[in-house]
């Protein structure tokens, strides 16, 4: 099966570096998905959640507060300002939500973003 190389980088280090089957990104003009062999593209991301479908079919969700994505023939590179892993982290849901709130504090449209994040966390916790 086809896969793409995904890299999520923040000023404090590389958050995600690996292979993915599909990535869903919160673009500045709406959410969009990237599959392997996507055409080249470069755009800004707004505060929101990146969903990564990993090779083992598990979904990893990562919250970002600002970002830029570059899709090219080599893979997907996301530059983010701050990031919090929503699923797959060891902390409890409350802790994750707390750190997510902290991250989104300064974003202007934070209320909407936070609402969408809590909805996402809710759905994750229900599934998990």
């Amino acid at each position, binding site marked *: 099966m086809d896969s793409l190389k995904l890299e999520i*980088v923040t000023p404090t*280090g590389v958050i995600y570096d690996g292979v993915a089957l599909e990535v869903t990104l919160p673009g500045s003009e709406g959410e969009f998905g990237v599959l392997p062999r996507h*055409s080249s593209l*470069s*755009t*800004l991301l707004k505060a929101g959640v990146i969903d990564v479908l990993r090779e083992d079919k598990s979904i990893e969700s990562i919250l970002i507060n600002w970002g830029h994505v570059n899709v090219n023939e080599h893979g997907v590179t996301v*530059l983010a300002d701050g990031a919090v892993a929503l699923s797959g982290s060891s902390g409890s849901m409350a802790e994750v939500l707390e750190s997510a709130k902290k991250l989104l504090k300064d974003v202007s449209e934070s209320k909407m973003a936070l609402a969408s994040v809590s909805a996402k966390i809710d759905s994750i916790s229900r599934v998990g």
Partner: protein
Amino acid sequence: MANLKDIKRKIGSVSNTQKTTRAMKLVSTAKLRRAEELARRSKVFAQRTNDVIVELAGQIECLKVGGIDNRFFKSCEDAKMVDIIFVTADKGLCGGFNMQTIKAVRKLLTASKEKKTKVRLRGIGKKGIEYFSFNQIQMLDEVIGLSSAPDMDRAAEFMNSSIADFKDGSVDEVYIVYNGFKNMLAQELHVSKILPVDTTGFDCEESSKSSLIEIEAEDSEKMLDSLVTKYAQYNLYYALIDSVAAEHSARMQAMDAATNNAKEMVKTLKVAYNKARQEAITTELIEIISGVESMK
């Protein structure tokens, strides 16, 4: 002839100092390792951001007639107002580390005075701020506590005011001066122009070849704006991290030298102590012998 007790007290005090300096060296070694790791991890972001900016700028340069029409990229021939951001440590006892930065800032100040450019000084770190306020040089901003604990949010906030002033035209150039980490033994002074972004290294041909990205010029300019802001903020953050690493390496060295000096000093004091002790014994013996002699 120094008193035996005095010398002993001195030996005690010097060896205590030695213990302190050694402890400080060990602390700096541990902290240095952490700071280095942080800088290493952070470097990836710098590379990626750089790649993207170069690529985008190159694209716009190629696509648009007349190149990039953006304040961030226009090099300013005669700057009227310059922002100098300097980063020093909050603490001393690290050799010439802080002084090097201060000297570089002074040099910039004199140079801009000659060119009749106005300078706004924005300081991070207690030592540099203390120096300039002691010399009654006006500073626009004073931030203490950020250079010992680098933080992306605070760095961004600090940088934002410079960026805003740059955007509305009240500032023409922004410099960052800091002492960075080179290796365990040496620091490297960086004086870097953050804004406007230096485009001389951008290769138009190269970037258009390497990627097939299709973007609209207007969109990409907005993107470039946002990216350059991030780039400037990040640069300050990186300067802070690099400066912490350098500070610890400088302190490590300074404390190592201090420990060695103390060791040397204890050695000479011990020799003096032994000599004094021997002399005291000799005098006592002579007294006894002469006393016995006189009784005969």
